[in-house]
């Protein structure tokens, strides 16, 4: 029974929620307009040719499409902004580089990537060679039996480090919400249960793969039969992972996709070369406030600010300027 619920029904629901949820979030974000081109410029802009612009400036203050792509890639794969992190020492009134968070984050995320790649062996038949190679390299094939996968341990370490930060650093503790702890605990539970299954209470991996291969082709009857034969320990790991999948699109974990949408990073700093059009104010010949804004049924309209209005207000003074032929000279004393 456990097998059927957690081995067949739950994963189907989780995957459906995950896929629909992520697509919904993407569409939802894309439905909002980007009124302004507002990149945060972290380096020297593109300027006169004689102004030196280094390779870092190209990525921190991108001008072309490719430079912007480069910035995003560095951001996503190197966590470049976190690498720049500093810490302010109140007692010394100065700041220094602080890269621990970067280190922990890199440790966790890359371990996660490796772990996911390794898990792809349960879904792909035949198992791709690079997956096998990667697993063998990180496990130092042959040293331990069964193989000890470094990424599997590193991910637990990384998660603990990230969590301990939230628990012991007063500032992080203050700004951590229950959901922040929850996400970390959930991931810890998944990774720890996975490790336990790997090293202590073993499950029959071939059966697990058979289950997944059958689930994929909606061979429900057979899958249910296989599911019942797998050790219960597997279902702790599997159910938690399913839950994470379903939880993902509706939590802060969605930062994985959101980072691609962030307007302060994914736009080039070429405002002066290419005009950005605001989709909800595409013909701004008259300012919105002059046209009027409506709040609670009332319309508020500002007076026109064109030259004629202005001239009519200060005619005398402007005429005086015109008389002096628009030229200002020092007064003769």
């Amino acid at each position, binding site marked *: 029974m456990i097998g059927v619920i957690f081995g067949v029904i739950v994963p189907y629901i989780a995957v459906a929620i995950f896929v629909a949820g992520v697509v919904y979030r993407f569409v939802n974000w894309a439905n909002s307009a980007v009124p302004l081109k507002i990149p945060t410029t972290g380096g020297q802009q593109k300027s006169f040719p004689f102004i030196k612009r280094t390779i870092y400036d190209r990525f921190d203050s991108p001008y072309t499409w490719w430079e912007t792509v480069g910035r995003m890639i560095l951001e996503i794969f190197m966590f470049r902004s976190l690498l720049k992190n500093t810490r302010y020492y109140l007692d010394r009134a100065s700041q220094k580089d602080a890269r621990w968070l970067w280190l922990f984050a890199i440790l966790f995320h890359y371990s996660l990537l490796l772990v996911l790649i390794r898990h792809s*062996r349960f879904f792909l038949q035949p198992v791709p060679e690079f997956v096998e190679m990667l697993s063998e390299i990180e496990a130092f094939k042959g040293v331990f039996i069964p193989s000890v996968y470094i990424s599997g341990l590193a991910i637990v370490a990384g998660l603990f480090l990230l969590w301990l930060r939230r628990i012991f650093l007063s500032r992080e503790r203050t700004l951590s919400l229950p959901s922040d702890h929850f996400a970390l605990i959930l991931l810890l539970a998944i990774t720890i249960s996975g490790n336990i299954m790997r090293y202590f209470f073993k499950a029959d991996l071939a059966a697990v793969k058979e289950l997944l*291969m059958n689930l994929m082709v909606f061979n429900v009857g057979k899958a249910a039969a296989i599911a019942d034969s797998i050790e219960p320990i597997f279902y702790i790991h599997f159910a938690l992972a399913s839950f994470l999948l379903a939880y993902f699109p509706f939590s802060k974990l969605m930062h994985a996709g959101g980072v691609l949408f962030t307007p302060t990073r994914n736009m080039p700093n070429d405002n002066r070369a290419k005009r950005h059009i605001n989709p909800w104010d595409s013909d701004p010949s008259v300012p919105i406030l002059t046209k009027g804004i409506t709040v609670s049924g009332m319309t508020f309209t500002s007076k026109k600010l064109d030259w004629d209005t202005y001239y009519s207000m200060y005619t005398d003074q402007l005429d005086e300027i015109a008389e002096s032929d628009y030229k200002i000279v020092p007064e003769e004393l």
Partner: protein
Amino acid sequence: MYNKKYVIPLILIFLVGFFTPYWYNAMAGSFGYEPELKKPAGECVEDSKWMAANHMLLLQQWRTQAIRHGAEGGRIYHSFTTGEEYHASTNTCWSCHDSKEEFCDQCHDYVGIHPECWDCHYTPDIEKPQYQGTDSLSKFFS
């Protein structure tokens, strides 16, 4: 929806990426593939279901036993399941499972694991001629 030029490919990449197993397995023609194990000649030293998950631990015990203790003590294994004694050696396994390809490799390939045992250890599938003992040296010295 704004920025369709980027968002739609992004969604497609996500879907293609997430559903990699589908197109990958479709291309390999391996949907629903399951390994088929050759039926062994006799009973296994332990319960076969237990062996499926834990045989590596057993073999590891055997190898340490056989190498580091040798002689009488080390090479004899008492089975939990049958209670019988077995000689701790890969050759003991080969007496029932006579093909690595049709037995071991089936599951190992299926879950993408390649133990390095066969770098050194003899398997029944080996192609080279087998040595027949000192008597066969008579062709050199007689």
